[in-house]
């Protein structure tokens, strides 16, 4: 891990994350289902990439493969040139439901990954404090998850992943269960956090507007089997706020990608 990181920092031109002809088959009952086929991707260090696609396009499967929770049937996932063989704290994952530990307070949720490492108590506390502050949770540090709103719970999940200093932060429809206002707050929040931390972010969402607003790059997956249908670089400045969503350029890209998603969705239905 340390070696990989230093190599990354020494200014390797290649992207930090690479997927080489990745495919994934599942057996569902007696049927063999191909969830993903021939995914070739390179994700640059520090970039923000969004993945959209109709349901069943294998978006979440893709994240599970990168996270190492699932092994590809073909091809391989490389992080800084090293094949991913299993889950690890260098690839943090946040689920739609947050999956926070309900019996742990906010601060102890954030501390989970750090508790597994040989850190002094003071060092661990300092790191927890930092990520609580970065995610605006300091005030809630002693609260239990059930006392939190959906958005706050997602912040806990994100803080917990970031505390492990991941190379890549994987977000699986993290704001899908939130109401519209909270969702916008969280979008601004994740943009700011990304600017501050500089972590590579890959976010799966079914919301094209969200994808275009957040991502520097939006990858559209086609369904059955999931494959890359389009790879669009978003022509928007790095500094974005909610007014960006009314930009002509923004609306153009959004419409373009929505058409793509619709096209490949109908393709699957028909």
């Amino acid at each position, binding site marked *: 891990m340390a070696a990989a990181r230093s190599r990354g920092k020494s200014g390797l031109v290649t992207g930090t994350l690479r997927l080489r002809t990745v495919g994934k088959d599942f057996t569902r009952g007696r049927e063999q289902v191909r969830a993903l086929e021939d995914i070739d991707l390179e994700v640059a260090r520090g970039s923000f990439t969004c993945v959209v696609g109709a349901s069943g396009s294998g978006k979440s499967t893709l994240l599970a493969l990168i996270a190492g929770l699932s092994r590809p049937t073909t091809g391989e996932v490389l992080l800084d040139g090293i094949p991913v063989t299993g889950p690890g704290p260098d690839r943090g*994952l946040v689920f739609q439901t947050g*999956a926070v*530990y309900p*019996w742990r307070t906010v601060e102890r949720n954030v501390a*989970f*990954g750090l508790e597994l490492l040989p850190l002094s108590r003071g060092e661990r506390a300092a790191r927890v404090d930092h990520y609580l502050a970065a995610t605006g949770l300091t005030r809630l540090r002693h609260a239990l998850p059930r006392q939190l709103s959906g958005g706050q719970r997602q912040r806990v999940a994100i803080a917990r992943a970031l505390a492990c200093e991941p190379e890549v932060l994987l977000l699986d429809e993290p704001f899908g269960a939130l109401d519209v206002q909270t969702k916008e707050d969280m979008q601004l929040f994740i943009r700011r956090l990304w600017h501050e931390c500089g972590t590579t972010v890959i976010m799966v969402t079914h919301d094209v507007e969200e994808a275009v607003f957040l991502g520097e790059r939006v990858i559209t997956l086609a369904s059955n089997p999931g494959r890359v249908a389009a790879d669009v670089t978003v022509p928007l400045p790095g500094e974005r706020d909610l007014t960006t969503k009314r930009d002509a350029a923004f609306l153009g890209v959004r419409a373009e990608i929505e058409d793509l998603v619709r096209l490949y969705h109908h393709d699957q239905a028909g």
Partner: protein
Amino acid sequence: MSLLTEGGPEPAGNPGPTTAADPPVAGRPGASAAAPPTSADRSTAADPDPTAGDSAADMDLTGGTATADGAAVAVDAGPGAGAAAFAPLPRRQPPRRVPRVFAVRAPIPRPSRLVLTVLSVLVPLALWQLLSAAIDGRPDYLPSPAQAWAAGLDMARDGLLLGDTLASIRRVLLGFGLAVAVSVPLGIAMGAFQAGRAAFEPVIGLLRYLPASAFIPLLALWLGIDEMSKVALLFLGTVFFNTLMTADAVRRVPGALVDVSYTLGARRGEVLRKVVIPFSLPGILDAIRVNAAAAWNFVVVAELFAAEEGLGYRIVRSQRFNQIDRIFAVLVVIALIGLTIDVALRLLRDRVGRWTS
């Protein structure tokens, strides 16, 4: 008003007295389907008209929509077209209001709760008193609560009750304690590992249907008639159920929680210790609470045979000397201790599971 007329001017057109006089069904005519195109007519027609005219007009209009009425006013084709094929959906009268005490799952006032709680103890006690009074003169058959109380005091003064209670509790602690020590790790293994489930669930699922009391003769044969066989009976009576229930509790750990722990760097053992077990602990305590009640039942059964002390033994002995009042006293003690164990375990569970909502 029914959903199809909502927002329309109809409420205003429907004068107050009209709706009040109408039975609820007629008051919200299904004819509403036709409302959007006809709201203009209605404001003229309904205002001077009494109830009958109003609903008659409604009826007519529905018929009208059914035969694709006014092409000119078919603005809201949506609802009209949807309802066209059917007669208006009948509406049921609103349900009668019931007192809160009878409403499904509704919280009840504190006094009601208190009264009901007190009654739930007092009514059976009163029945007992009545029944024993009815067959008066047969305290050897059914003693009154007062007689049972007196017998209990008597036994307590002799130190019998304490000795018996302690003997029974000791057996429960030993037998059920052993069962917990075996079943909780086994249940966790079965709940956390598919292999554990495949290996143990079939046999345990089978064994739990063998009544533990049926093992009493065998246990006496193998282990003698001392403590060992009694402890073994308690063990057999509770270990299988507690294993399966523990496994169920462990299986309720969300997969996402396990997955996310791996991505935070946890190893297999850490996932078990720091995620699976803490999450399922309240459920495991629930299982233990249920099976502690079973253990408390089994100890009395075990003591009915070849014991020298214990609450079950006291029952058999009292029967032999025809001291029925003592039997009742012992039964009350058994119930009270059972309740105490239950409450204590529930408090523990609520404390451990404070994080559950």
